[in-house]
């Protein structure tokens, strides 16, 4: 090879290297999610691909982490060099801690009125700390009772009686008399039994008393309304309505128990509907026997409570996240994409007029209920720091097992809350 052709080869090689590095000089946006449903993940991927097609210089990278692993690993990930740009949040106490730790990007400047009103402005409140917006709400859920129509008929329960707490208690008695396990519960993780307490507290104390307690006002959680919620849970637990071995059962076990038709009720979020089928032995679940009723009114609590209970989730941003990351979530939260996510990915967004866009009648009902709600309360446990959250779960469990009285539980919760402040 002559020296000239050597020179030419070197030149073309370096040119090739240059173009290669130019092609890879894309902006990478790392997006960590905890979604297990393959349909939802497919929609995520389609949305990412849609954005990349519009912005060829941006590369959206999805990374999946399991729920509990995600919560435990996130603090370490945010300290490392591969901190994600966009990640999942439940709002509440952990969000406040992340803001305090200075690891989040304040996106207030990017959230204009057009964006705010395209999603429900009140939902942005779940991601607002000290007047600054840190996240975009894209998902909401509703907790209520799934029930087995066949088992209810067998026990002779009139579904109209389930509007009140005393009606529900009577139904538990009837089911037990008929030899049917009234309720399936995944007790190992703690949060499923906390749903009972939280919804009861919504009915006896309401969101104003919760906010007052969280602000350190008045008697806090020692308020009689919270004691009453613990007492009602203790009364229900005294009937021992759960399946045998509930303490070691996972949430998945409880879905299976209910989906197999071995327990008559399941207090869970709307996300559990598909799981009660997939986790059941037949894989079919209850089919047409699957029913749903809203958490009953408590006659001795707030009269005609219009509040509902469920989560609000959204995407939040690492402090060094680029403008492209925020822009991508803006694209993600467009009306068109949120409707696609709801219809194909089973995630209902807190968006005005969502119910009208939904094809599935049951999902429509869920969206309508949330839209008609006077106040949609975020999960109680996530309103606290992670430490008080787990303490609350332990306290609720001890009420269910009868190890703590209602007064002791309320006192323990207030003590735990005070300790962390």
């Amino acid at each position, binding site marked *: 090879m002559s020296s000239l052709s050597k020179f030419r080869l070197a030149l073309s090689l370096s040119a090739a290297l240059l173009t290669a590095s130019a092609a890879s000089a894309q902006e990478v946006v790392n997006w960590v999610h905890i979604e297990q449903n393959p349909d939802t993940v497919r929609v995520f991927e389609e949305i990412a691909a849609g954005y990349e097609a519009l912005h060829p210089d941006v590369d959206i990278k999805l990374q999946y982490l399991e729920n509990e692993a995600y*919560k435990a690993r996130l*603090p370490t990930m945010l300290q490392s060099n591969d901190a994600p740009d966009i990640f999942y949040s439940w709002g509440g106490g952990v969000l406040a*801690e992340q803001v305090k*730790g200075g690891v989040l990007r304040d996106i207030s400047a990017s959230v204009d009125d057009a964006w705010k009103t395209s999603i429900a402005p009140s939902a942005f409140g779940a991601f607002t700390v000290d007047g600054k917006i840190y996240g975009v709400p894209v998902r909401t859920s509703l907790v209520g009772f799934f029930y087995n129509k066949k088992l209810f008929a067998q026990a002779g329960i009139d579904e109209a009686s389930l509007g009140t707490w005393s009606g529900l208690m009577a139904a538990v008695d009837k089911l037990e008399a008929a030899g049917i396990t009234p309720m399936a519960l995944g*007790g190992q993780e703690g949060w499923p039994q906390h749903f009972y307490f939280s919804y009861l507290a919504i009915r006896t104390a309401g969101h104003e008393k919760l906010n007052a307690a969280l602000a350190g006002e008045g008697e806090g959680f020692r308020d009689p309304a919270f004691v009453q919620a613990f007492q009602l849970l203790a009364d229900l637990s005294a009937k021992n309505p759960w399946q*045998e*071995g509930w*303490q070691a059962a996972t949430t998945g076990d409880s879905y299976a128990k209910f989906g197999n038709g071995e327990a008559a009720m399941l207090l869970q979020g709307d996300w559990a509907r598909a799981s009660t089928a997939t986790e059941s032995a037949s894989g079919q679940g209850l089919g047409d026997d699957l029913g749903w009723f809203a958490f009953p009114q408590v006659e001795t609590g707030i009269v005609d409570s219009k509040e509902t209970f469920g989560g609000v989730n959204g995407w939040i941003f690492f402090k060094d996240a680029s403008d492209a990351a925020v822009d991508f979530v803006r694209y993600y939260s467009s009306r068109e994409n949120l409707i696609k996510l709801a219809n194909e990915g089973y995630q209902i967004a807190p968006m005005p007029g969502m119910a009208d866009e939904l094809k599935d009648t049951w999902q429509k009902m869920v969206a309508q209920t949330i839209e008609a709600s006077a106040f949609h309360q975020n999960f109680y446990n996530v309103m606290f720091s992670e*430490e008080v959250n*787990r303490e609350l779960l332990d306290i609720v469990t001890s009420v269910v097992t009868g190890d703590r009285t209602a007064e002791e539980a309320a006192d323990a919760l207030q003590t735990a809350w005070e300790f962390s402040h």
Partner: protein
Amino acid sequence: MAMAIAEKIGALYTRANKPLRLSRGTTTALIFILPALLLFTTLVILPMAEAASFSFYEWGGYGDVGQFVGLKNYQRMFSHPVFSRALFNNFLIIVVSILVALPLAFLLAVLVADKFKGVSFFRAIFFIPYILADVAAGLIWRFLYDGQYGVVQFVAGLFGFTAPYLLADRDLAMYAVLAVVVWKYFGLHMIIYIAGLQSIPREVLEAARIDGASWWDTLIRVIVPMMGPTIRLTVFFSIIGSLQFFDLIMPLTGGGPQNSTQTLVSYLYNFGIVRLNIGFGSAVGVFLFLVCVVFAFSYRRLLMAKD
């Protein structure tokens, strides 16, 4: 005794006072040690020191290290009933390992140490639980213990009674865990014992037989004493392993029900990492580290010095 110690200290003193003169060999050695020392310092010593320093702070893990709180984390830890429970559970695991798992392993080792037809089959069978990943073993036992579909319930049914939901009962769950501990780890000790047994000289055993020693006498008066170093080693492994016990607990019970099966490490994980209380978790870590170090050094000094 005092005299001997004084002499020793004296010797150290004179040695220390000698002018520092590195021989060629020492310099070479230092150069060779340097990379390892650097790695050890940056990857082991520094993180440990950092974790120890976190234990004096109240820190949620996000952002900069939080507020200095002195010994508050340690005070909380020692006054926490779940911590005492975890400590007690670790103690239980140690006791059961030494009193049940090790004798069982020794007995089986004696049975399968000699060569006979099918011996490798039995050795493999006994060793399989140890090969199995801890998490897999935990999941398998979770199914076995299931009160509705589990094998335990099936076996109980054969004898005409119903077994309780073992893992759901906080008074029984720890015993269920202990059974798994024995099942999981006796195989390892058995293999170590077999190696020890095979190193006992044939002549000694033959001499015992010629002298008319019974099987039992041979076992107690010849084999066990000659296995001293091996037994001390397995006790050491058992105790250190028990203190670090974690992988099996998480899939099996997660420390529940109601914290009745927490061990020190699962306590550290659940109350330090999961609750985003890194300072507190570090305090537990420091405690665990000190227990392990003190135990390891004193055990090796006192009981394994001659081995």
